[in-house]
Every structure is written in C-alpha cells, then in structure tokens.
C-alpha cells in the first residue's frame, strides 16, 4: 500500500490512494485554483490534466501560476481543444474534441503507462471539467467515461480531481456524477473569501472551512 496523497496550503486531509474527488463549485478562479493545488504534488509524483475547454498553453500557464513547477517528465496535458501549443513544459497530447471520450480515455491510459515506464509511480489526475463533457455528451455516456476513469485511477493507486460546476446542471446530473466518485468537495464564495466542505474524506471536518489559494 502506498502512502496517502497530501496537499500543501490547502486545509484538506490527505487522501487514500485510489480516491477520486469531485470538486463542485462555480467555475471561477477559486474552484479551479483549489483543484490545481490538489493536482500539484511533490517532485516525485506525476500529474495528468485533461483539459476540455482550454488549450494546453493557457491551462499550463494557469497551473504554473497556482505554484506548480511543470516539467515534461512528470506533467502531461490532454488537450481536447486541439490547437498545437509550442513550448509548453509538459507532454501535450491532442484529442480531437471533448466529445471524443474514447480518445481521451485511451490517451490517458497510454500517457500513464509512459510515466510508469519512466519511474513515476504516483500520479494525480485532473479532469477540468466534467461540465464541458456534459455539454457535449449525454449523461449516460459521460457516466461511463467517468466511471471508467475513476476505475483506472483506483486500479493504479492514483488520485483523481474532477471539477464540475453544479450551477450548470440539474441536481440529478450532479448527484449521478457524484455517485461515481469516492469523495466530494463543495466550494463556495462568501463575503470573506473561499470556503470548502468535504464529504467522504476521512479525518476531514464536515463543516465549511476557509481556504486561500490566492496567487
């Protein structure tokens, strides 16, 4: 059994390998920055980010601004927008579009294997975001994709950080996607700043807690 995955500068208990967390919040900076932080592990860990609506160069910039030191040996971006980005400090794999869930899943498996072959055993996986996939595909198709990816992450003892904007979907949709994930973090904005509340995370208080991911 490998060690839990920890988080720096985020008030969140470490996660057991195999866990996928649905991060549910408005798709503004707070939710995304929290997800970037959760995706950014220590130097011996890899990260694979599936970007459904931002090309690799832009999401790499955002990710770097959240404090992550991108490096092609340990960071990969699956770019569903398809533009060829030069000079991105990560492996960039193009997928024909966010409706090609088969292509996303297969490239994910392939790049994960590349990491493992180069000695990177621990991998964090980001999916930014489930909401885009739902706007291009029906719930059942996206469900199968999410279920398969969650299963893959579990099989290799990684962790998953999947973003969804609950304001874009009805309750049954969000609840169905939540049912595939082992934990969920809700994010909200208050007058004083950002707050998160976790469900299904051992050793984590179930109340709202403040967090600050300003750059």
């Amino acid at each position, binding site marked *: 059994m490998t060690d839990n995955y920890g988080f720096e500068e985020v008030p969140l208990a470490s996660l057991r390998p195999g866990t996928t967390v649905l991060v549910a919040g408005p798709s503004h900076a707070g939710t995304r920055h929290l997800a970037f932080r959760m995706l950014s592990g220590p130097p011996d860990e890899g990260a694979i980010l599936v970007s459904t609506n931002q090309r690799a160069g832009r999401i790499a910039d955002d990710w770097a601004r959240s404090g992550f030191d991108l490096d092609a040996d340990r960071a990969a971006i699956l770019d569903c927008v398809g533009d060829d980005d030069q000079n991105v400090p990560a492996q960039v794999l193009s*997928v*024909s*579009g966010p*409706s*090609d*869930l*088969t*292509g996303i*899943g*297969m*490239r994910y*498996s*392939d790049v994960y*294997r590349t990491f493992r072959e180069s000695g990177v055993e621990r991998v964090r996986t980001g999916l930014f975001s489930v909401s885009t996939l739902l706007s291009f*595909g*029906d*719930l*059942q*198709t996206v*469900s*199968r*994709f999410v*279920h*398969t990816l*969650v*299963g*893959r992450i*579990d*099989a290799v003892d990684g962790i998953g950080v999947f973003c969804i904007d609950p304001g874009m*979907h*009805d309750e*049954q*949709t969000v609840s*169905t996607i939540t*049912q*595939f994930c082992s934990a969920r973090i809700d994010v909200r904005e208050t007058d004083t700043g950002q707050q998160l509340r976790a469900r299904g995370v051992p050793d984590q208080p179930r109340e709202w807690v403040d967090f600050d991911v300003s750059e």
Partner: protein
Amino acid sequence: MILCVGPETPARERTAAALADAGFDVAEAGSLAAARDALDAHAVECVVTEYDLDDGTGLDLVEAARERHPDAACVLFTATPLAEVDTGAFGSLVAEYVRKDGEHGELVDVVEHALAFRSQTAYPLPDDEGARVAALEQYAADPAELGASLDRLTELATALFGVDAAAVGIIDAHTEEFLSCHGISFDTMDREDTVCTYAILDDGVTVIEDVQADPRFEDDEGLAAANIRFYASAPLVTPDGQAIGTFCIYDDEPRGFDGRDRELLSLLGDEAMEQLSLRRRVRDAGGDGDD
C-alpha cells in the same frame, strides 16, 4: 466469459492463454464477423480485441458488444499506435487501451480490475454491489411460482394509488427481471435502461414526478415508448440490508406523491420482500415451494 479477438492466431492464442491462466473463461474469434457471432452466443462480460481486424476494427466490435452486452468491459489490446486509432467516430463508446508489447501483465491487471469493480458500466453501482448480487442469488425465484402472490400486490397497488401500472423487479448484475407486472408488460431489461437501477441507490422510497424531465432518463427510448412519465418505487431489502429489487408504480402523467403514499408503497415493498423470503425459507427447508 471474456471474448478475445484478433486476426493473427498465434498472438491471439497467447493473449487468450494469459487470460485463461488468470482464471478467466475465454472464447476466441479471428474476425469481426466471428466475434459478432460469439457476442450472440455467449454472456460476454469482457472483450479484449486487436484494433485491426480484417473485416473491420476493434472499435466496430466494441460498438457491437455494447449493443448486445451494455455492461461489458472493453479493452483495445494492440500494437497499433494511438495516432492510428480513429477514436473520433467512436467518441461515445469509451474503452480501455493497453499497448501490446509481448507482455500480458498489464492487460491482465486491467481486465481483473474492470471485471471485479465493473468499472465500465454507464450507471453508478451500490457501494457493496458484490455482496448485493451474492445476496440476490439466495433469493432467486421462479416468477411462475411467485406469480400469483405478487400479482395480487401489483394489482392492489394500481388501485390504491390510481396509477396505470405496477411491477416487482429484481435487479441482478446486468439486467432487471420482472417477477410481476400489472397494467404493463416488461421483458427482462438491460440495467442501464431501467429507472430501478438508480432507485436502489437511494435510501427508502424513490419518487420521480416526471421521468422525461430527468436527465438520467430523458434519452431512454424504452421508457418513452412505454409512455412512462411518473415513477415511484420502494426497495426490496433483505434482512442484511441489501436492496435486491424494487416494488414500482408507473403512470402516463407526471404527478405528486405525498408522505402517506410513500409509507403505503414501502409497505407493499416489504410485503413483496416477505414473499420472497418465505419462498426462500420453504426451499431451504426442502419443500418444493410451489404449493
């Protein structure tokens, strides 16, 4: 049963042998056409296929597999680089990809995990799905045997709630089988096409006031064809807490369902479960159970 497909016999046989060594039942096919026949002939739970089949591609096969066995785990096991795999036309299939390099360890790991956790289903599973299915087997019932007692309950339910139809369904690993239907006739249905699949994830009674306004079912042609607009169900729960099926009611108009209705539907669910439990006890005691 795992269906192992590839045009080159020695390579396919090696893959099939590796899967058989891991303890799986394996059938082989050398072409897309032969694989389609095998899908019809066997209860295929997993497809492991090369990409290039002489009469089509592995993704054509995955598409056929999902039509015939929607829950099947599908794995493309190929030396063909991903750049040459045309996923765009098959974007909604979703399948695993394992690069073929002469070893079978990764393939066996992927197949074992996908089958143990059933991770390619298009619907969520209860947390303890394995225990649930195991519990279900103990309550296996012959609909002909149970018919009369459950038929009385479904008929009473339609009159009690003033709805079109009522049914008692058992949800096994991949399908829902109906032990009784009143006012409607259901054949065995794939689990991904039934509302009850989602209902057994809820605690207690599930009410969907307008099925066609629910994103989980808005594309479900079977429900639309049966003109199902309102759905409510109570789970059939074993003494160990496993929901093995539902007592459900349907109507062709959206409607409300109040607290008292929920209580009454729960009672009907409990009564149906009691019938199943009694049959099980009779069978365990050595009776023939068809009295």
